[in-house]
């Protein structure tokens, strides 16, 4: 326990005028310091694989979507932003989404969908800007959500790096 020291004002501080000069000297010095503000739209924030932007769906190198419409992300989403309508496909995995919608107005960019997906099909991109002229346009469908795997590769690698836990567990051997 430390008792905080309450000090009385000194004579100089009571006089106030010298204090104004001292205060101004502090603020004046700030003028020459490095600026921390940013002119936002012209100077965007640096983005890297850590940035958790809007979720996007992975399109594999063979042109097929990686999602198998298992519905895990739909369940994991705390904002009820995802709606999936599953359908059949002739591919070996048998299922793929017919409709896959993410309501970007609801999405809180929490990343739970990315974490829950067992098929590496949904990842957080670094796309952050979200503006449009109507609400309807911000409910993203498959066409708007699809991204080639190469565009998300850095994030995929990063998530795998994060997810390297339990290295000593027997099942990882």
């Amino acid at each position, binding site marked *: *326990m*430390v*008792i*905080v*020291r*309450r*000090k009385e*004002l*000194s004579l100089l*501080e*009571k006089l*106030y005028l010298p*204090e104004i000069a*001292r*205060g101004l000297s*502090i*603020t004046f010095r*700030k003028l020459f310091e490095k600026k*921390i503000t940013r002119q936002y739209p012209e100077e965007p924030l640096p983005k890297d694989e*850590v*940035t*958790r932007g809007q979720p996007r769906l992975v399109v594999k190198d063979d042109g097929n979507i990686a999602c198998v419409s298992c519905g*895990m992300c739909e*369940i*994991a*989403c*705390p*904002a009820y932003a995802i709606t999936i309508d599953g359908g059949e496909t002739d591919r070996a995995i048998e299922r793929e989404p017919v409709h896959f919608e993410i309501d970007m107005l609801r999405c*809180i*960019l*929490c*990343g*739970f969908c990315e*974490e*829950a997906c*067992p098929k*590496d099909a949904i990842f*957080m991109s670094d796309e952050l800007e979200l503006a449009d002229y109507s609400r309807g346009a911000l409910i993203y469908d498959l066409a708007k959500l699809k991204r080639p795997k190469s565009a998300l590769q850095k994030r995929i690698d990063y*998530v*795998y790096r*994060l*997810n*390297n*836990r*339990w*290295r000593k*567990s027997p*099942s*990882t051997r």
Partner: protein
Amino acid sequence: MSTTQTFEYSRAMPPVDHDDPVQGETMMVNMGPQHPATHGVLRLVVRLDGETMEYIDPDVGFLHRGKEKTCESLGWHKFFPHTDRLDYVQPLLNNIAYAMACEKLAGITVPERGQVVRVLLMEVSRIAAHLIYIGTTSIDLGAVSNFFYSFEQRELIYSILDAYTGHRMNNTYVRIGGVYADVDENVERMLEKFLDEFPEKLQVLERLLTGNRIWYGRNRGVGLVSKENAMAWSLTGPNLRGSGVDWDLRKRQPYCGYETYDFDIPVGTVGDCYDRYLVRMEEMRQSCRIAKQALERLKQTRGAEVLAEDRKYVLPPKALVHRSMEELIFQFKVVTDLCLPVGEAYQAVESSKGELGFYVRSDGTSNPLRCHIRAPGLMNVQAIPLLGNGRLLSDLVAIIGSLDFVMGEVDR
């Protein structure tokens, strides 16, 4: 020593004597809900006699979003993003408090390194939250440059959190069983640089305020709370310590291994706004000290686990899910049906505002039976009449600032 004032004392509006030539001219004023000094949407009904406040009635609930009920309908894991939005200036601290309540209920032990990361995050969040207090309170009392300087420091903290979690606010990076990701070396370096420079920057803030005659005059002797009153009105955190009560959960009921860190609890003597300010300033310095120690420990335990290995409550790593059927089943199970055992648990942590507690009760299903949030801010708001009655209206701004609450948490 003054005696404890009862609850009725400030709740009941004193009757107006209309025959009294002076008293008959009291005025009711609505301060808020959009008043900038109320840190959110708080409405204060104030009855003024001249410029003296006779009666203050805080009217809370404008920001009520039903968080506790939401927890019951969303389920254990999905409530995490909602805890961010309680006291939104320290999201990670709220995450941790909630996670710890769940862990207590489920009996999960967080690995050593996970605890250290948590301590680090908590202390950094505390600094950020106190910086907001300094900034907003000083701008409310007319010291505008301080607002910018404290927000500059906070900006640095948010950049660090951005590099760690990918978000500046509302991080959602804590999970039941630990934290989602390890702190990598880049973030460690950023943190180290920040913690090294911060005490110096804090001194600039202090030089602008502590001996400032205006700050001094507007805070000193304003909003006095005696030791007894502070305890009787359930004040916690810096507000309680400002009144001279040596009570900090980090020391009294240690969690996350706080007992192994070396730090002091700053305590005030008088219990006015000035004391609370001094306590918070010193607390930031102590937080800096703890964070440095935690950083040291992080360097020693590099490579250790940060998330408990528990297939019932924690998602297995992605690489395993691809390789093994069992892990895939665990993944499905945790996402769709995370159930905590029957029982109840209460876990309180020392947040920047005071004792932040989560009470969770489970009936064994995937949805909590009850989740109660003990928000320190609510107790702080409730003390406004105690501090403000009989003082001038302009003091109210200083009192609100020094009590330091965030309405997101008060109304939840």
